[in-house]
């Protein structure tokens, strides 16, 4: 509970309407899209201006109150769970696009703009903002940035960090800073912009974002290839890239995922197949056609049982939409769906999928795998029931093995979802003790009182997965 005087001050800063602390409101911000984790905040504050953000932070900093910035709460790392209580700072009112600069090919916007709304706005001008996380119709650009979200176009176009040019952000002291800007080249000092991207709300609060835009590709084509085994699918991915074609998207679905997605989206997929690849290329018509035909040929050579070209853009869009709903559709199977985010170099894709299968078998769990095959980013997803403590324990063990396998193969513990609470106990596997110490010193420089999203990113206990209830 916050002291009465502090509550009064917060009310005075943002106004009565935007300060919430009734039981229902607090409960509604005690979770995000991450399964199992939950903890209650002491208050929810919804600021409308950078001055308000600054005033809230200053107050919190003085009194040592935790601040948990929040976009749409779709992250899968427990990033917005107020584990140590404090204030959930809901940034959804920062939902304006201030400018689309057609000369410099940039857009400047509030962090609360929903990703798909940004897409729509720039595409109306013939421009293109490539990052497209599966959650784009819900997630905010601020949340994408803070998590450095990836998406299905990562292979050719990169991820969120490749499009953030400049920022305005607020430090816990209340100081408002800017970094980067519209310059494509900018090497004045440390790259603070890059540092803020992926900072997961632990360094400061982002209040304005300038993103880079591209010309909208003229056309796109989609292709599906079905395989009777996993290795041929992985070989297709390798061979396509080795032959110097970089498709916009290569998505992978294993058999169990195919079944569920088909049941949900009624696509009529050949469910006897072991896996499928969904490949999309965009760009000038001629090139796209040439690439897609070449890819189809490679897929056949590498043993695809069936290769289909989407006849119309609508058909292609429908297939990709189905892939986007994979996670949510999987959740129909059991009460709790735990999605992980292990990533390996592309060349180890088949090994990794096989490893996941082995681990699932060993621990007697149902794990489906799908993901961004083009960039080695896999989402082994376990369907379980959080009420069954014994099973959850096996899930923890299974994922621990999967992470170790990823690291062994030269991969990483998370490709796009971030560390948050879900992965903090594995961060050392990837960056080492020295890396953690350096990161902690950076955090202390920004946030000496540790009020920014405390209890995230850095492990404070020996336990691997923590289940928090309050």
């Amino acid at each position, binding site marked *: 509970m916050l002291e009465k005087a502090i509550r009064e001050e917060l009310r005075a800063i943002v106004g009565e309407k935007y300060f919430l602390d009734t039981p*229902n409101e607090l409960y509604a911000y005690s979770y995000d899209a991450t399964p199992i984790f939950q903890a209650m905040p002491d208050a929810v504050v919804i600021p409308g201006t950078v001055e308000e953000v600054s005033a809230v932070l200053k107050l919190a900093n003085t009194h040592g109150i935790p601040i948990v910035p929040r976009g*749409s709460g*779709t992250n899968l790392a427990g990033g917005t769970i107020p584990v140590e209580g404090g204030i959930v700072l809901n940034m959804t009112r920062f939902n304006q696009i201030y400018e689309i600069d057609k000369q410099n090919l940039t857009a400047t916007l509030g962090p609360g703009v929903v990703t798909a709304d940004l897409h729509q706005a720039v595409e109306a001008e013939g421009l293109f903002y490539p990052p497209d996380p599966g*959650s784009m119709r819900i997630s905010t650009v601020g949340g994408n940035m803070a998590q450095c979200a990836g998406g299905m176009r990562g292979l050719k176009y990169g991820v969120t960090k490749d499009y953030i040019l400049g920022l305005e952000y607020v430090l816990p002291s209340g100081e408002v800073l800017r970094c980067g800007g519209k310059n494509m080249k900018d090497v004045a000092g440390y790259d603070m912009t890059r540092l803020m991207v992926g900072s997961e709300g632990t360094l400061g609060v982002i209040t304005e974002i300038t993103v880079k835009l591209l010309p909208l590709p003229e056309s796109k084509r989609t292709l599906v290839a079905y395989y009777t085994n996993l290795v041929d699918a992985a070989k297709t991915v390798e061979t396509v890239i080795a032959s110097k074609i970089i498709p916009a998207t290569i998505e992978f679905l294993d058999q169990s995922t195919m079944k569920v997605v088909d049941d949900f989206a009624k696509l009529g997929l050949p469910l006897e197949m072991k896996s499928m690849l969904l490949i999309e290329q965009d760009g000038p018509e001629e090139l796209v056609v040439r690439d897609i035909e070449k890819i189809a040929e490679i897929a056949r050579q590498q043993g695809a049982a069936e290769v289909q070209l989407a006849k119309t853009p609508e058909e292609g869009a429908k297939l990709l939409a189905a892939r986007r709903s994979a996670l949510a559709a999987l959740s*129909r199977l059991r009460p*709790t769906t735990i999605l992980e985010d292990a990533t390996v170099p592309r060349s180890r894709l088949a090994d990794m999928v096989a490893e996941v299968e082995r681990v699932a078998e060993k621990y007697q769990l149902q794990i489906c795998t799908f993901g961004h095959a083009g960039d080695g980013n896999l989402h082994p997803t376990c369907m379980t029931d959080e009420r069954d403590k014994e099973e959850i324990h096996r899930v923890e063990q299974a994922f621990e093995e999967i992470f170790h396998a990823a690291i062994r193969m030269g991969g990483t513990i998370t490709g796009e979802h971030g560390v948050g609470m879900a992965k903090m106990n594995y961060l050392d596997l990837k960056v080492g003790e020295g890396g953690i110490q350096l990161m902690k010193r950076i955090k202390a420089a920004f946030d000496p009182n540790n009020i920014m999203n405390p209890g995230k990113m850095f492990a404070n206990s020996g336990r691997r997965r923590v289940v928090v209830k309050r």
Partner: protein
Amino acid sequence: MTRTNQELLAKFNMDEIMNCMHCGFCLPACPTYRETGLESQSPRGRIALMKGVANSQLTVDAEFEKNMYACLGCRACETACPAGVPYGSLVETAREVVEDHKKSETKPPFLRQLVFDRVFPYPERMKTLGTVLWATQSAGLQTLANKTGLINILPREMAEMQQAVDKIASPKERKKREPVMKADGETALRIGMFTGCIMDMMFFETNQATAQLLTKAGCDVVFVENQVCCGALHAHAGEKNGAVELAKRNIEAFERAGVDFVVNNAGGCGAALKEYHHWFHGDPEWQERAMAFVAKVRDANELLAELPPLTFTKPLEVRVTYQDSCHLAHGQGVRNQPRQLLKSIPGLELVEMSGADNCCGSAGIYNITNFDMSMQILDGKMEHVKKTKAHLIVTSNPGCLLQMKKGIIRAGLEGQMEAVHIMDLLARAL
């Protein structure tokens, strides 16, 4: 926790609640979330609150009640949800829990009791209400009341909404209705009309038009006796027992009438009629009877789209836009049929508005119980309507029709635009 508390919490189906993986896919579909930006006003948030109550982490209090009733029940979230969470039935259970809880603590408020226990279950009383309304309108009392400020005696919300009510049919007209309307030409099907309580009172002519269309399509139309209100309003308001009673009476009435299909023209009633079998869990005999009944229920749009195409002799040179009824689109999955029917009218031009299947804010009696939010949503809707430059807004549900009439008044478009039920429009072109 008290024993009654536990009993009422046991009503929640924990598995269904747990199936919500809080992915948030439903957020952008939800009108109340779009208006407020608040998690507690989103489907994901409301389900979480239910979970909180079911786990005893939250109490069934005034705040919980407010949040459950702030939902329109439009079920757009169900369409959006890839996990297949049956939100509509969850929120009904939540309201039932609220109402049970209140009953165990206090007496229900008089007005509520009046409406749910004393009027809706009795067709005769609904008819009387209709006659009184007609008499008031005919005697010009409404105008008088408007002018003198007598209107202020009514709660503001009701007074506001009655602005949109058109003149209703006279008792004499009602009496003229024959119990069976014969098919034009050869009889293909015997149809039981579900007349609906409010529908038959306020939109008597729309029911007549529907029956006329069906006879043209080769059906004998029976105005089944002893039918009662569908129970949707009861169910949405947490009055489960009342709803179940009404469902039983309807099932019996239509069984006796021996019809091939049970046809209605109100999206909200239709969705409830199609869900009767879910209301009888733990009562196998009634559940079976309900299933047989449900198998026969069709929306008028649905059935007309399946029957041989109607021949329209009067072309209508108008530009129309179609406002989906939530319970027809999200609840029953009927989206294309009304559009196809509209397009089959010669001369008619259909212009889609953006977000046609977003709730208009009417939602049963929501526009009276949550007037301000309802109007906020309606004003947003009217912006989209305006952009279509349509002359007519077509709907498939009485509540939506009233709301759109109100919207036209609010947007200052009286005289330029008209709201009409699809059955009336189709009948105009016959």
